[in-house]
């Protein structure tokens, strides 16, 4: 008897309790807690292997000194993120100023020719980048970076599945249902009612916004 864990919300599927083997579940079976597809479940190994390379810890260097070249869209999103930072400190006027800048740089940004399959490919590549970044963040014990990387890995995984479904089923996939995005972590949910709390970042669902 095996156990499987939902990599999104942590729900555990225990074959012993369910009396049905995980592999015998239909392909369209979804996580009863968060709606994640079957493919996002992982087998729980008997023994958890402990992380070994924690010893080669290095001294955390000083903050970034030289400014990197940033694209217009990057500037736009840095500014909208800083607007969020102001909002949390209840600095309403500063928030509006950062939002103005964000819109300005977004308008200056140019589109790139491409197709959905390009986007899909890049999304899959992101999972490698995320994994690589996670190793670096673990090495330097950067909790904040580890947090966003965990969330972004989950949300990018969900995006991959949604792109797959859209490719297979076309607009029929979304024609008679609603679609939502968590405004905190980017989790995408297809369905009429979003989960009570976001399965990725655990925010209550008033932060999960319907896209119209």
């Amino acid at each position, binding site marked *: 008897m095996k156990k499987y864990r939902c990599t999104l919300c942590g729900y555990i599927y225990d074959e012993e309790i369910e009396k049905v083997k995980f592999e015998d579940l239909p392909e369209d079976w979804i996580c009863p807690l968060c709606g994640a597809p079957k493919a996002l479940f992982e087998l729980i190994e008997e023994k958890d292997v402990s992380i070994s390379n924690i010893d080669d810890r290095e001294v955390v*260097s000083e903050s970034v000194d030289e*400014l990197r070249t940033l694209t217009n869209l990057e500037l736009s999103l840095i500014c909208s993120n800083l607007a969020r930072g102001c909002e949390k400190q*209840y600095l309403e006027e500063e928030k509006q100023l*950062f939002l103005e800048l964000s819109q300005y740089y977004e308008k200056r940004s140019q589109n790139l020719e491409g197709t959905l399959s390009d986007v899909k490919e*890049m999304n899959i590549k992101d999972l490698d980048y995320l994994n690589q970044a996670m190793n*670096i963040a673990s090495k330097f014990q950067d909790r904040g*970076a580890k947090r966003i990387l965990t969330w972004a890995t989950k949300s990018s995984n969900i995006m991959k599945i*949604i792109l797959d479904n859209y490719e297979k089923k076309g607009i029929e996939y979304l024609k008679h249902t609603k679609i939502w995005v968590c405004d*905190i*972590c980017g989790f995408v949910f297809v369905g009429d009612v979003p989960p009570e709390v976001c399965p990725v970042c655990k925010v209550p669902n008033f932060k999960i916004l319907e896209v119209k």
Partner: protein
Amino acid sequence: MNKEHAYRNLKLCTKDCLCLFVCPVGATDTENGQIDFEKCIGCGACARACPSHAITMIPNEMPPQQKKNNQVVNSLFLIVDSKIKQIQKLNYILEQADGEVEKKFLKTLIHSNKVMIEDLVREAGYMLPQSKNTYKLLKMLLNDVDEAHRKTIEKLLEKIKVND
């Protein structure tokens, strides 16, 4: 000088008015529903008395943000750059799209990527508006900006006090 001041979350305030009873300087009773920050002495009595937990004490000055390792920052920006390009492509596809469902789908992907990028850049050194990183960025932006937005940047530089 007080270290913090009270702030009322209007979404939570159910007008229990305990704050009015306990405030020693009458800062909590205003026409616009918000606390009078000029009057507030930061004693915290209102926040402790509020039965709806609608009042929080906001520090007047934030502590400096966490220092970031360059390798971590670079690895985060690798993801940011990829997701930026995806949004640029999705915007291009969105321009050509005509079906409502397709548009909604594309907007969803764009929104999701934007949220992730915002959080990634936050952890890559742009967490606090008061940080030196933000200050340096705003200064640099002055080099290439139109007149209206130059004013926006100048206002921000004037209003935000650098804390590290």
